[in-house]
C-alpha cells in the first residue's frame, strides 16, 4: 500500500482564539442558566420537576441535529469520497450519542414524576431510543469493523438521519403522551429567558466539541498518512 501522495496538509485549524471565545460564551451561559431556571415560574401541574425541560429539550434537539449532520456528512463521504466529511460524520455521531444519552436519562426522570412511569412505549420515545441505538451501532461499526467499517457506518448513518424527521413529527401524527413540539413557540413568557439561554449555551458547547473532535480526527488521519510514508521510506519498522 504505497503512499505516493503527500500527507494531507494540516488544514487551516480553526483559530484557537475563536474556540476559547466560544468556550467562554458557553461557560458563562451555563453559569447563568441555573439562576434563570430557578427564577422561571413553576409549572402548576408538574411542579419543580418540570425544570428538567430546560435541559432535556435542548439536548434532545442537539442529538437530532448531530444525527442530521452525520447523515449529510456520510452521504458526502459515500458519494464524493470526501475524507473530511467522514471526520465530521464520526464527530457528529459521537455527539449524537452523548446528547441522546442526556435526553434519554433526563426524560425518564421527568416522566417518573409527570406520568408515573419511567418509560412508556410511546412513538416519540421509541423513535428516539432507536436513533440512539443506531448511532451506537454506527460507532461500533467504525471502531470494530476494520476496513470497510467506515462505509457500513456511513450507510447506517443515512438510515439514522431518516429517523430524525420521524422523531420530529411523531408527536403530531400519533396520539402520544409526550408533549408536542408546539410547546416551545407557545412557552410561558416567564420561561423563555431560561429556555433560550440553555438552548444557546448548549448549541455553543456543541459547536466547540464538534470543532475539537474534527481537529482530533484530522490530526489522526495526518498521523496515519505520515506513519505510512515513514514506513515506505524505511525510516521505521513494522
Amino acid at each position, binding site marked *: 500500500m504505497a503512499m505516493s501522495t503527500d500527507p494531507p496538509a494540516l488544514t487551516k485549524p480553526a483559530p484557537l482564539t475563536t474556540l476559547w471565545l466560544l468556550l467562554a460564551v458557553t461557560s458563562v451561559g451555563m453559569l447563568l442558566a441555573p439562576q434563570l431556571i430557578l427564577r422561571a415560574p413553576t409549572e402548576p401541574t408538574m411542579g419543580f420537576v418540570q425544570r428538567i425541560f430546560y435541559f432535556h429539550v435542548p439536548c434532545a434537539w442537539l442529538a437530532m441535529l448531530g444525527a442530521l449532520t452525520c447523515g449529510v456528512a456520510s452521504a458526502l463521504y459515500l458519494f464524493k469520497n470526501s475524507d473530511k466529511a467522514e471526520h465530521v460524520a464520526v464527530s457528529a455521531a459521537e455527539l449524537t450519542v452523548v446528547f441522546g444519552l442526556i435526553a434519554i436519562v433526563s426524560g425518564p426522570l421527568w416522566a417518573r414524576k409527570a406520568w408515573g412511569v419511567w418509560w412508556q412505549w410511546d412513538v416519540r420515545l421509541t423513535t428516539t431510543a432507536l436513533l440512539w441505538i*443506531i448511532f451506537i451501532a454506527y460507532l461500533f*461499526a467504525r471502531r*470494530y469493523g476494520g476496513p470497510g*467499517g467506515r*462505509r457500513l457506518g456511513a450507510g447506517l448513518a443515512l438510515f439514522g438521519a431518516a429517523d430524525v424527521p420521524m422523531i420530529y413529527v411523531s408527536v403530531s401524527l400519533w396520539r402520544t403522551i409526550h408533549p408536542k413540539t408546539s410547546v416551545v413557540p407557545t412557552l410561558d413568557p416567564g420561561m423563555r429567558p431560561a429556555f433560550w439561554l440553555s438552548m444557546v449555551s448548549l448549541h455553543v458547547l456543541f459547536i466547540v466539541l464538534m470543532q475539537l473532535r474534527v481537529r482530533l480526527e484530522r490530526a489522526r488521519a495526518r498521523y496515519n498518512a505520515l506513519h505510512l510514508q515513514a514506513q515506505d521510506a524505511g525510516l521505521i519498522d513494522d
Partner: protein
Amino acid sequence: MTSASFPRQVAMLLWKDVRVELRAGELIYATLLFAIIIVLLFSFAFLGGAPPTVEVMAGVLWVALSLSGMLGISRSFEREREADTLRALLLAPVERSALYLSKLLSVSLLMLLLCAVVVPALCLLFGMQVGDAGAWGRLILLLTLGILGFAAVAALFGASLGRARVREVLLPLLVYPLVVPVLLAGARGTYAILYGTPESLDDAARWLKFLLVFDSLAVMGGLWLFEPLCATE
C-alpha cells in the same frame, strides 16, 4: 455492456442462489431447524403458567422469524465470501441494482419458507388460531410485507460487509435497529389480525399500510446505497 435485460438479470441471479441452495441444502435445513428450536424454547419459557395471550404469540412469531432469518442471511453471505463469489458477481456485467434485488428476493424466499414452519409450530405449540380465509390472507400479506422490509435492509448490509471484521456480530447489530419498525408493525399487525374484531382489523390495515411505506423507502434506500456501500476503499 450488459447482455441481458434487467428483469432477466435479476431472475438469473435469483435462480443461481436457489440452485446453489437446492444442491447444498445446508442453509435451508439448518435455518428451518433453528426456527423450530426457537419456537420450542419460547414454549418452554412461557408454557406451564397461564395460557399464552395473543400478544405473546405475535411477539414469538416475529422474534423467531427475525432470529432465524438473520442466521440464514449471515450464513448465505458468508458462503459467498468464503468462495469469493460476491467479488465475482460484482465484476460480472450485471447491474448493481439487479444484484441487490436478487439478493433481496432470495433472502425473502428463505424467510417465507421459515414462515411455513414457524406459523404451524405456533398453531401447534401455542394453540394459535388464525381464523377464516380472510384472516389467513391478511396474515400472509403482513408476513410477506414484513419480510420484504427486513430483507431490503439485511441484503444491503449483508452484501456490504465485505472486508469488515467481526462480521457475524456486526450484521445483526447493524440490521436489527433498522428493522425495529418492521418488527413493531409486524407484531402489532399480527396481534390485531389474531384478535379478530372489526376495530382490530382496521388497526391491522393501518399496520399493513405502514409496512408498505417502510418497504418502499427501504428498497429505494437499498438501491441507492448498494453501489457506494459495496465499493472498496
